[in-house]
């Protein structure tokens, strides 16, 4: 992120959306709405003085999965690029009622600008790369898992925030119900994935992140227990099998083959997992202190609207259609795609795909330049 942020050839338009795309390969014009942050990006350096006295305090923090609150002026996350603050117009008292203005008085650099408006930018570009990533499945409709009703049933991403040193609990694995340390944690795989009712495909990355999460849990609390309930255990990338074995042998993670059927709760709000161990063919239950749902990864929200604007075809699951023989290309010449928006992929795959898409775009841009000079 930092490298991109620092690169002299890169112009980052964060907090911006593509409104339309006209033209064709080598000669596109993109109309981009750069949303007002109410903060001058050139002046702000994210020192954070503005938010200290902001009176609006109870807005669920998106980045922390709503496990923590933020203020009306905020930075999406502390290492964010560009490193600038944003005022949330739906919650800022000044922007709504014309009163307050505390942040402006606190900013010694004079970066706060309540009069800032959305900007419409027209960009002439030779090629376009779609890299809109993913969103995760909301497991609430799978009522058998009790997400949203049972406090100690959380999602993988929520767990990631809990275990993170910059997260809402300072990296302590505290149960949402009582703030007690969770010592016995179950990870439930294929939640919404490989499911005919929801995402009828494999999200690819969850088996590995469940192992990673369990390892992190053990590193934080060495005497804790962890259980991963999986179907096929799909650890297929470079050195992944070794990692799986390490999880079992060095970290004592229990791998159980079986899809969890139901989660109930005991009187202490401990989740009880009901499952069939398909290797012993027994129906069993397990009491844990916290259950983590490895939720399906899906095409990002808004990707179908974006696809319409770009004229790009999507597959039935909403991913950008890109396949052999040119797996970085979409149906529109000059528009390329990479990462999770074309289907589940882990980090190294996404990076390789990104370089590939950049390459295809470079072919267009460089050859266009050559033609111009010829």
């Amino acid at each position, binding site marked *: 992120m930092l490298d991109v942020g620092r690169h002299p050839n890169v112009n980052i338009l964060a907090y911006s959306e593509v409104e339309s795309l006209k033209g064709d390969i080598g000669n596109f014009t993109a109309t981009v709405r750069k949303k007002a942050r109410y903060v001058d990006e050139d002046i702000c350096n994210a*020192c954070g003085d503005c938010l200290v006295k902001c009176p609006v305090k109870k807005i669920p923090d998106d980045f922390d999965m709503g496990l923590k609150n933020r203020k009306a002026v905020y930075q999406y996350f502390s290492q964010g690029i560009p490193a600038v603050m944003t005022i949330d117009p739906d919650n800022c008292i000044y922007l709504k009622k014309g009163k307050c203005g505390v942040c402006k008085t606190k900013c010694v*650099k004079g970066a706060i600008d309540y009069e800032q408006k959305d900007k419409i930018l027209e960009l002439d570009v030779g090629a376009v790369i779609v890299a809109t990533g993913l969103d995760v499945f909301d497991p609430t409709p799978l009522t058998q898992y009790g997400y949203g009703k049972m406090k100690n049933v959380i999602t993988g991403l929520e767990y990631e925030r809990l275990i993170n040193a910059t997260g809402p609990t300072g990296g302590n694995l505290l149960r949402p119900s009582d703030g007690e340390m969770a010592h016995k944690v179950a990870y439930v795989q294929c939640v919404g994935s490989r499911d005919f009712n929801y995402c009828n495909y494999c999200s690819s990355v969850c088996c590995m992140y469940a192992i990673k999460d369990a390892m992190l849990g053990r590193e934080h609390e060495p005497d804790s227990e962890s259980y991963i309930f999986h179907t096929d255990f799909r650890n297929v990338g470079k050195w992944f099998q070794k990692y799986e074995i390490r999880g079992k042998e060095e970290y004592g993670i229990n791998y159980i083959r079986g899809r969890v059927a139901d989660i109930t709760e005991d009187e202490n709000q401990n989740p009880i997992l009901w499952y069939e161990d*398909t290797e012993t063919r027994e129906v069993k239950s397990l009491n844990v202190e916290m259950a983590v749902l490895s939720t399906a990864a899906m095409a990002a929200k808004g990707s179908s609207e974006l696809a319409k604007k770009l004229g790009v075809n999507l597959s039935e699951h909403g991913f950008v259609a890109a396949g*052999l023989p040119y797996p*970085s290309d979409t149906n529109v010449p000059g528009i390329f795609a990479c990462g999770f928006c074309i289907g589940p992929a882990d980090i190294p795959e996404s990076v390789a795909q990104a*370089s590939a898409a950049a390459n295809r775009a*470079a072919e267009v841009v460089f050859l266009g330049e050559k033609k111009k000079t010829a």
Partner: protein
Amino acid sequence: MEEIRIGVFVCNCGSNIAGFLDCKELAEYSKTLPDVTFTRENLFSCSEAGVTDIKNAIIENKLNRVIVAACTPRTHEPTFRAACQDAGMNPFFFEFVNIREHCSWAHKNEPEPATQKAKDLIRMGVARARLLEPQESIVAKVEPSALIIGGGIAGLTATQSLAARGFEVTLVERTNQLGGLMKGLYQIFPGDISAEQLTSEKIETLSKYPNANVMTETNVVDVAGYVGNYVATIQPNKKQEIKKKFGIIIVATGTRSLIPDGLYKYDGKKIITQMHLESLLKTGKFKTKNVVMIQCAGSRNSERIYCSRICCMTAIKSGIFIKQQNPDAKVFILYRDLMCHGVENEEILRRAKELGVRFVKFSEDQPPQVEENSVKVFNDVLGREMEIDYDSVVLATPLIPNEGVESVSKMLKVPLDEYKFFLEAHIKLRPNDFATDGIYVCGTAHWPATITESIHQALGAAARASIHLTREEVEVEPIVSMLVDEDACRGCGLCASVCPYGSIEMVQTSKGIKANIVAVACKGCGTCGATCYKHAIKMNHFTNEQLTAQISVAFNE
């Protein structure tokens, strides 16, 4: 000698530093340090005003060393170096002291000791700054041509891509045919594309580029040099060897399928491999009615613990073809885990099930037994043994590293992992780079991969390579190691053996064998300097004297 005049700028970073440390005191303290002739406290040293302040102070106060005590060099060293340069100073007379991330943020609850620590850090910075030397960037020309080793789908794709960009590309393939593993394949998933057609289209496209030079039955026998200036010795079959200069090299040496001698009664006739089956399906010669496929034949075991990533899909695909060609055929796939990750792979698994391909799970400790005419397998899910009659048993054997990878690894001085796949610079963030600049890897030489993945990686490696080729020269920070005492060097070669970037070569000189450090390939890690017991190597910009001075004042005010 010129008088040393050091300026120290203490940044508040808004409240990020000043909220925890007493910056005023730090500025006052800095004044007491040797050779410090100017100090200033800035609200934001990095701001336009802050940078202008630094430039003016250099000129007005004739400063010849500048220290900024601030956030982190990761983001702001370039800013301050540029400011020094603008004011006429050599940018390497700039010294960064990190009092935010190494101090104020780390010790938020202890402002007083943290301020003391910041003083120690500044004192150390001053000690080093006094001994800094001017440096000039190292620039080398880049030969705008590429060498691709291996003519499979990855090598072909990388060649085509770089040729399309207008670079001179030489593709070297050691066999007499291009196409690699794909030559033997029938149809590929997803999309039911003919493997032969895809390969021949690629090969045909290459013939359209006069700047793409394809050499089959040819080996690369030696490579010397460094990024931008590799010299390869190429040996075509029964012809004179050629020496040629290349700016970059892409390794696309591919992989091969394990021949499972001694496994599951493999005989190459009734009991064959998936690769063999593909070739039979391709020619329409596979007429067998009862087929049993066994997965993980030779992988995910103690000898070869990795999963070969593609075999489940290969088996499922073959199963579908058999059922399509002969709906009465019975196909059983015996598996441990079905590795159908992603969207398309899961789809073909469903398609196979719909067509009546049967799946039987077994566990590692109870592998199937291949008998004369049947396979006995303990079905994990049903909890009972099954006996399945067969006409053919097809073993899904893993992709294993190609013969000769060790010599390629040695020749290019790039590492292999424990399974002898090539080891990239960073497992997550740099999957197609080597740590050595100007050498890249793609396709199954890196790890078992599908055709789609190999194409992605090949395009990716070509993209990475094209950065050097486009720029025409490579500029390196002069923070590199130098052989300062040639007489002391005994030519032992320890430094060359520990260098992770292959930037040291041992050369014959009039004084015997000596180390030759290729500065442009050096990353300045310092490993060689630390290893050299004759102290013949010096680290530019991090000299022993500079570091010793820092350490001695750290414990001694």
